[in-house]
């Protein structure tokens, strides 16, 4: 085991139970690296997850305290937990795209509106993958999955002029970034900023699912095929790209929006308000 794993992760859960070649481990490692580079200890972080590959493969890997919510609801659970925990404890959530942008989207938006101090890492494998590979709300237009055998035809949250991060920004999130799992230190830096924001932060991290997505959409389980697909579609925010030539989905990566610590954090505001009302009634 490497240094990070020894310091922060439980031997029992290593190696991960994810498929070999899965990009999830790249994300997992980047989150742990960010925690380490911020000088945080095991006891400083409470780690939560959702359901699905993203949830199950990262649940209880953290040496400290762990929880996993039901599908899509961990944001509401974490809101209650945020109020109860001391403000210096970090709550980091690793969740799936279906969990965050599908079934849990209402709760996610309300967390953004309230500016609840949470760091949400959306591990996006472009659909519902632990259930075998059905299309989700980030599945690229036209791509085949088990439930879109003729190609994804429904509008998604990513194309046609929509970007899920814009919706979250409008909702009130104070830190938003996107990185694909194949990126390096720049992704770690964004995760660090997300953790440091005392407010609602979300990092959208598309990653290769070799077993289900790649198999159906690209016709190959070979990691090299899926990684190449991702590499071609990972485009820095400020980088020029010939969209017409690409003619397909691509992921603009970098920090989308950084309003860190610019507006009151929900639990802190609630605590202050309660203290003030209490003073009046003493």
């Amino acid at each position, binding site marked *: 085991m490497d240094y990070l794993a020894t310091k922060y992760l439980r031997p029992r859960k290593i190696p991960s139970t994810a498929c070999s070649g899965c990009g999830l481990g790249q994300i997992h490692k980047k989150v742990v690296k960010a925690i380490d580079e911020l000088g945080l200890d095991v006891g400083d972080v409470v780690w939560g997850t959702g359901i699905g590959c993203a949830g199950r493969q990262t649940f209880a890997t953290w040496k400290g305290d762990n929880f*996993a919510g039901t599908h899509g609801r961990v944001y509401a659970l974490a809101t209650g937990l945020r109020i109860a*925990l001391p403000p210096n404890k970090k709550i980091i959530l690793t969740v799936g795209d279906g969990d965050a942008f599908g079934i849990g989207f209402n709760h996610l938006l309300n967390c953004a509106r309230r500016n609840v101090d949470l760091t949400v890492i959306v591990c996006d494998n472009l659909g519902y993958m632990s259930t075998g590979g059905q299309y989700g709300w980030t599945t690229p237009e036209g791509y085949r999955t088990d439930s879109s055998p003729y190609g994804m035809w429904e509008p998604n949250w990513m194309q046609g002029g929509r970007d899920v991060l814009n919706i979250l920004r409008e909702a009130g999130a104070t830190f938003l970034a996107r990185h694909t799992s194949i990126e390096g230190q720049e992704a770690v830096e964004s995760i660090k900023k997300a953790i440091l924001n005392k407010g609602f932060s979300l990092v959208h991290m598309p990653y290769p699912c070799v077993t289900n997505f790649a198999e159906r959409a690209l016709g190959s389980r070979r990691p090299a095929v899926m990684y190449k697909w991702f590499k071609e579609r990972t485009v820095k925010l400020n980088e020029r790209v010939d969209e017409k030539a690409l003619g397909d989905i691509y992921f603009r990566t970098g920090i989308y929006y950084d309003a860190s610590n610019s507006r009151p954090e929900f639990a802190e505001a609630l605590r202050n308000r309660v203290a003030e009302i209490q003073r009046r009634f003493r």
Partner: protein
Amino acid sequence: MKRTLDTGNAAITEGAIIAGCRLFAGYPITPATEIAENMSRRLPQVGGYYLQAEDELAALHICVGASLGGLKAMTATSGPGYILYADPYGWAIGSEIPVVIVNAQRVGPVSGITGAPGQGEFYLSRYPTQGGNFETIVLAPNSVQEAFTLTVEAFYLAERFRTPVTLLADQLVTDGWETLIIPETEEEIQAMGLKVIPRRINEGPEFYPATDEIDIPPVVLGHNTGAACSDWTPTAEGYDTEEVEWQHKHAYRLIYKIRNHKDLITRYESYFLEDDPEVILVSYGSPSRVVKSAVKAAREKGLKVGGLRLISLWPFPDEIFTKTAKYLSVELNYDGQLVREVQRAMPKGSEVHFMGKCGELPTVAELMELIEALIKGQPLKAKPWEMEAW
């Protein structure tokens, strides 16, 4: 002691605060809205937190999350919200997190009649979530004062059994105005027989031991105990597992921690049972008030009639049905829910009959008519609320 005239909603609010509740998350719904409103006013005064959630799924999840962080928490709703609790309810049962849930029952199904009393969630409170493999604890007050004491009791049981407890009230109990006596000191709390225990923290490494024991502290996150809690079947340490053996251990714990300590939960009231009455009326919640009057009136006429009022509904108190008699279950629904459990629990040679109403209480006169018919052995007259031969 503070003596006031107030509603069941206020009683539940004050009971929760005395029990140590410091977070309430809710969503407006008649007839439980007033509990939320009272909480929004009272909680900040005692250093507690009130939240309005985006829906009931979130409301109970926020409560459970707060409890997971060490705060005692409560939510309140009525039928349409209670059904949305199914998901977090199950999470809290499986992860064994204490939380108190109030259901001010109204008329259903779905939105039904909003401001009128019903008793349609008797079975739903037994099976408030999917999957089976658990028991639930449900208490049912029939007065404003009892709404207060049972709320305190609900928090007490939730902590000891580390599980959600439902206070299954109805619109007449929550909206009704009656005398309410509230203790103001520790001594007065004790003098009223109320018990309050603080939240304890499970230090691990066994968070989910395979035992029916109670008084095991729940998981509380943020203390670096290395706790793991989730919606999956846990090993003793809380790791997710797909081993059937662990599933069996977990189910055993969720079922038998409650079944094997039922004596700590069961509460009921019985009257006029000493001389083996021919007819015994069974009820809970607000109809039990009319039932008691009817039984007294029948006794004054010299009829051998008794009454059983259930205060704890689940686990169902089979053991209190000791008399062979003609049972009459009086409920605020037309489908007959309690009646099925009575039928199951009553001794051989007994009969069970049903009187259903909904949205309004039965009258003493209606009940007297049925009591007399049952004693004379006459068939019950066909009325919309009657179903014979259960």
